[in-house]
């Protein structure tokens, strides 16, 4: 069977699981709260999602993994991100910078500016 794909955040979750399995779901919730900053509902949702995808199984509130750490294909991560993210943030959210359309030429131009500045030619 093909190794199921998992997101980076799910990967972090699985790390905890791999470390502590078999583990009671309530205990898992507590650990996720501590280490990942997740709400209990989030943890349960992720458990459900991953069990549907065949990454883990949840029997009688005990969670065990079905996939080993080595087998996970981290390389798939970027692909998934491309597909799911629609790329737009609401206008009223404060951000660092939004993803912008720049031609290679423009990118190089800006890079040059930065490099020249670094060399003290600002």
């Amino acid at each position: 069977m093909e190794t199921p794909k998992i997101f980076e955040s799910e990967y972090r979750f699985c790390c905890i699981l791999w470390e502590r399995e078999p583990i009671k779901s309530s205990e898992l919730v507590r650990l996720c709260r501590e280490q990942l900053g997740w709400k209990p509902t989030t943890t349960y949702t992720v458990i459900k999602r991953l069990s549907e995808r065949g990454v883990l199984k949840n029997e009688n509130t005990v969670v065990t993994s079905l996939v080993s750490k080595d087998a996970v294909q981290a390389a798939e991560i970027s692909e998934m991100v491309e597909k799911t993210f629609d790329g737009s943030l609401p206008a009223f959210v404060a951000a660092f910078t939004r993803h912008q359309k720049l031609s290679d030429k423009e990118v190089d131009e800006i890079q040059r500016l930065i490099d020249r500045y670094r060399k003290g030619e600002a």
Partner: protein
Amino acid sequence: MTDLFLKTLNMSISAGWIVLAIVALRLLLKKAPKWITVVLWGIVAVRLVCPFSIESVLSMIPSKETVSPTIMTDEIPAISSGVPAINSTINPIIEETFTPMPGVSVNPLQIWIPILAAIWIAGMVAMLIYTVVSYGQVRRKIGTAVLLRGNIFQSENVISPFVLGIVKPKIYLPFQINGQDMSHVIAHEEAHIARKDHLWKPLGFLLLALHWFNPLMWLGYVLLCRDIELACDEKVIKRLDMQEKADYSQALLTCSVNRRIIAACPLAFGEVGVKERVKTVLKYKKAALWVTVVAVVLCVFFAACTLTDPKTENPDPTDPELEKWQVILMEEYPEYFGLDASNGLDVYVFQLAENKYEFALLPHCEASPQEIDAKLIKVEEVPAYTMRSILSFYPIDKDKIYIVPWEDPIVPSYRGAYWTRKAGESEEEFAERQADYREEIRFLLLEFDAEFPGSNYCDSITVDIDGDGKKEMCLITEEGVIGNFPFYRFLAREKGEKKWKYDSGIVSKHRYKNGYIDYRSMIFVEDALGRMYIEAQCQDGDLSETRRIDIAFAEGKAQFYYKGKALLGGKPETTLMFAEPSLSWVTSDVPEVVLSNRILYKYRGVQTLGATLEITLTQEMLQPLFNGYDGQYSELAENILRNNFRAFEIYPEDPESVDLYYFLLQKDGTRLLVYGHYENGEKNGFIRWIFKTE
């Protein structure tokens, strides 16, 4: 709801002016710290949120209330934007499109404005839904974000780092970000949090939702977002050395261009292009202290100018207490408002013809005639009632209003009696006559309306009318019109007195052929012998002539006379009560009947008017009251019929007479003398007046 809409509209317009001002001001503040510009936008927000404000002379807002809350029910809808050019462009269009047609009950604005209000609500709701939905979407995506440290999270669903959360703001970063970039990004987001941008931006967006119909608000929000970003950058790089600045720029570039992501979004609004931001960062130089200080002072001054409303010292066109006609007056003759009346006001009087005057107004000054002419040319002459209204705006002492007869600088004037000394008149007499003239004009302008509301001024003259050695100011007024026929009234009072010595009551008619004729105009004239009389124009069917009417006194009372015969008069009653004082009628026709101030009537006198014959009062007899005068007396006629106790018709002794009299006794004891005449020899009489007698 429409009320709220109009209020919001007005606030939006006021705020719009500020946005324009800030756009200009930003150019000046290029060298100043960016946070100052953000504060300026805060001022717009305050203006949008606070409905009340203080007044000050500094206010730059053209108008506090451009759209009147009563615009839907106004006879002539108009806006008062505070900018005459805008008003004169828009108001004629509004007037043409939206003034209700007389007879049509609904002002079109009453339909349109509620529709616009509904559209406004719909747009606002749409934007709020967008806000809620997109916020929800973002929240969902970052549900599985993983804690990095403190309040910083990472998620595979984040490409562009951002801050989310109102109460406990959290920073969200992507997973793929190198350590160096990360520290700068975090610094930037923490700066956002420190500056509370995570609050201002959503708040601004909510205000935008409320004012979505105003394009200037969108402009303001876009610029606000830009300025926030730049201010944030500034805050971070203030403490960075050159290398770190270069690193920061690198982070900007890297985060903006993630080549692994194919889908890129165009520059969303409020975004500053990366190139511009990098340039700004690299060019950054801390602003000199004096620049900051000056900018802050400018800000404070700007706040005073924009957060306050224009003072209503000189009448404020947006003052909701003003009536529409007052506002229109202020817009038509702006040169007459806001004048410096501290030394008084000069009212210039131009006499164009025998009885035609026009007026102009200037602050009181001592200047040469040429200088005054130069000023008068710039203002527009107005008729008496307009000048009267204009003067009512100035709360100054009547003594400080000076009447200055003048010759029109452009149009050759009528050189009336004022300008020419009469033959045999001494210097003193001439001066006195001129002073009398000015007093008459003063009376016309300042007192006439209050004393005779609803009447029209016809003419005045100051002369000793009753031969007692003291001059009286005599006045003819037009007392209202029934059908086509005006009613006149003669009054006189001694110079310097307030009380009227003589009052003819209302007069108009004179017997002519088989009926009565009416006068169309009356003015005072002096004959060759210096005696005063009245020149009256009569027009009635085939009759059109000028008549000399004298004022004579019988038993101390003033009376209009024509060719020795007294003119009768009176007004049809709608309430069965004479409201105005009238005089004692002494007519040679009926010497026994004395109709005086409250129509004192002697019962016996009726019989001397003619023979009386008891009749049955029918509707037919009172038909003219039912039909005529647009049916306004039909109720009166009905009441008379219903309350009728006994009715008598009076047959005048003279068989040629066209006088019509009924004498009616009502059930409640009221006695009425109905007076009219027969038209064209017809026995169907025309009822003119009803006197209630006591």
